[in-house]
């Protein structure tokens, strides 16, 4: 009884026979399995943190939230996440500590291991560093949040291609009500695809800065979506989007 199966059971994604078999497997154990409650909690958390897909979200609301007890579980979980303080930093070994621990061990094997790691490291790292180095020159673009979409006729900012720099440095002006979030996420998309998250380079009280390497841009319209993340890790979409269009100069005949 994995978490996936428990989730499928709770969302009524299993057939009737599968659901009955699942119950029988649980009931055949000496004790009612406690991992079911853990999996249920994780499902509720995923719902509250907006981590479920659209279909699962709908099934959660239609098939899971069927009793007062379950509705109360969701509301108390929401209260819990709201009051949860930020964690203390996880104590993990730093690179220096790991190196020291390595040096402390008996000498013979690690000389060979060190040579091996060094050789492999150089072989792997050099091409990676050459190809994936951070852009050094930037072309600045300032964008403000807009509720405009393609149909409203508001013209997005334009960027001429090719860029005169290695990357586009976009300064996204934050809306007033969103300047005190614990963190932000920015997703970008073109007209046909979601292009994933953009790394946030810096932020101040008024804006955040994201970088798009020149080789990631091709002619077309781009949309950047802003999300705030509160101290509980709950992500919330900020209404409105940032738009810009990348254009190549018209070719003369």
């Amino acid at each position, binding site marked *: 009884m994995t978490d996936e199966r428990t989730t499928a059971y709770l969302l009524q994604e299993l057939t009737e026979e599968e659901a009955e078999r699942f*119950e029988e497997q649980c*009931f055949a154990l000496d004790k*009612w399995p406690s991992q*079911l409650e853990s999996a249920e909690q994780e499902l509720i958390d995923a719902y509250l943190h907006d981590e479920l897909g659209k279909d699962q979200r709908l099934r959660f609301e239609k098939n899971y939230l069927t009793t007062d007890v379950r509705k109360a579980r969701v509301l108390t979980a929401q209260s819990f996440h709201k009051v949860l303080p930020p964690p203390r930093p996880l104590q993990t070994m730093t690179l220096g500590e790991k190196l020291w621990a390595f040096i402390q061990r008996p000498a013979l094997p690690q000389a060979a291991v060190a040579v091996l790691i060094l050789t492999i490291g150089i072989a792997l790292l050099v091409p990676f560093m050459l190809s994936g180095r951070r852009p050094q020159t930037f072309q600045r673009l300032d964008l403000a949040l807009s509720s405009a979409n393609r149909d409203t006729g508001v013209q997005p900012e334009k960027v001429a291609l090719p860029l005169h720099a290695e990357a586009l440095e976009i300064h996204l002006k934050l809306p007033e009500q969103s300047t005190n979030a614990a963190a932000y996420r920015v997703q970008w998309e073109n007209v046909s695809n979601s292009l994933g998250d953009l790394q946030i380079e810096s932020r101040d009280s008024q804006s955040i800065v994201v970088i798009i390497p020149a080789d990631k841009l091709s002619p077309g319209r781009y949309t950047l979506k802003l999300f705030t993340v509160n101290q509980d*890790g709950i992500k919330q979409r900020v209404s409105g989007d940032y738009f810009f269009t990348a254009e190549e100069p018209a070719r003369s005949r």
Partner: protein
Amino acid sequence: MDQHFDRLLTFLCPEDPDEAGLRYLRLHQKLAGYFQFRGVADPIAAADETLDRAARRIAEGSDVPDIDKFCLGIARFIIKEGWRFNNRESAAFLQFLQQHDHDSKDVDRFSLMKTCFEQLPQNDRDLLSSYCSAPTGRARAKYRVELAEQLNYTVTAMRVRVTRVRRSLDDCVKELSRSYW
């Protein structure tokens, strides 16, 4: 009714009354777990009802090759009857949670949760805030393995601990909210 109960105990272990009692309790706990998982308002009462019906059917001479499956069948039937999915207490608690949001003047559910959270031992508070702040996606599993190692738990044991502590928080909020129902 007592005769039915005695027949059930005899059925569970004819030769040893103590062992029969243990088997009865184990069955009751599993039924309560099942009803709780199904979101029934009073899982203990539902488990009692299931075992009462099972005892009656056994006393009436039903053929029962597997007591677990037999009781599960009755429990499913009880669920289908819609038996106490919701009751006055669960409705009142839900109503409290829904109405006592941030706007509430006297008390809100967040302040009750905060009170309950602050009553936890420091190590449980640390555990919850670390465990629940895990990143999303693949990084979550890695983060929780590291956390478990740091706390000298297995990942499973840590998860069970988190579940228990969170359940105790839920119970605490429910208890504190009773005076507002």
